[in-house]
């Protein structure tokens, strides 16, 4: 699973983070290093869709983001769908 948007939402589900913190977190839990262009492309899309929002911060260079309620719902729905796929795939891989 390497969809940058889902990885980013999963990272923010743990708590508010700025770009670099998200990059580090994602690398740690998913083993994927998102490039700066990919990360900020995903941030742009997710903010436009209202899944994440920027938090008031005095440091505009390290702007933290938070998961919104709709972002949380979206992540839950995506996670459930992925779980079904993983379960199905796992059961089909088991020897008959």
């Amino acid at each position, binding site marked *: 699973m390497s969809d940058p948007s889902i990885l980013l939402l999963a990272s923010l589900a743990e708590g508010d983070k700025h770009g*670099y913190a998200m990059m580090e977190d994602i690398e740690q839990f998913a083993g994927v290093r998102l490039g700066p*262009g*990919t990360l900020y492309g995903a941030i742009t899309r997710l903010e436009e869709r209202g899944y994440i929002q920027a938090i008031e911060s005095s440091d505009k260079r390290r702007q933290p983001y938070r998961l919104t309620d709709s972002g949380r719902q979206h992540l839950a729905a995506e996670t459930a769908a992925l779980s079904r796929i993983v379960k199905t795939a796992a059961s089909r891989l088991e020897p008959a």
Partner: protein
Amino acid sequence: MNRLARLMVRLYPSRWRARYGLELNALIEDSGAKRLDLLDLLAGAFKMQFCNWKFPAGLALAGLAIATLAVEFVPKSYLAETSVHLAANNQGKAVQKALSRSALFEVIRAEGLYEQERARLPLEDIVEKLRKSTDIPAATPDGITKVSFQYPDEAVAQRVVLRLAAAIAEPGPVSTSLNFPNTRTFQIAGAGLGLLVGLSFVFFRRRPA
């Protein structure tokens, strides 16, 4: 490498940079740009610019479609042409006679030309209109000239040009072409206008507040 990466950030749309530029530059500083990050930033900038181009491109396509449709509804004008061989000693007189008031009036009457205009304009104006729609350039040294006439009805244009040419000499075969509207010109103008409106919109929208 970080310097190159920051240059890549400049490729993003200015409106986007006004919102995320500082953060992205800080991320590049904090994480230290790798070689692959340059490609990643280039692809990101391309995607963001493409989002900006979608709107003008869409308007250009819409302009193209509207222009293609509009061509069908625009009043058309056909150009009928034929060639005649003029006798060397009689060139000027023959053309003059063919374009005389009485000859042109006979053509107007016989072909029922400019019916709507005839109801509200004096005959002199109608004759002048026919004269302006007719072109008989000077003959080539071997005495050949073209007679052409423009009219909204293709068949009438052909008949009139044959009448006018026959008044001068034995006419050759008649060819007809659509003189107006030129479909390609309309399409280029429609697409161009759409693109211009779209680009103006994007330009003013992109300017940071």
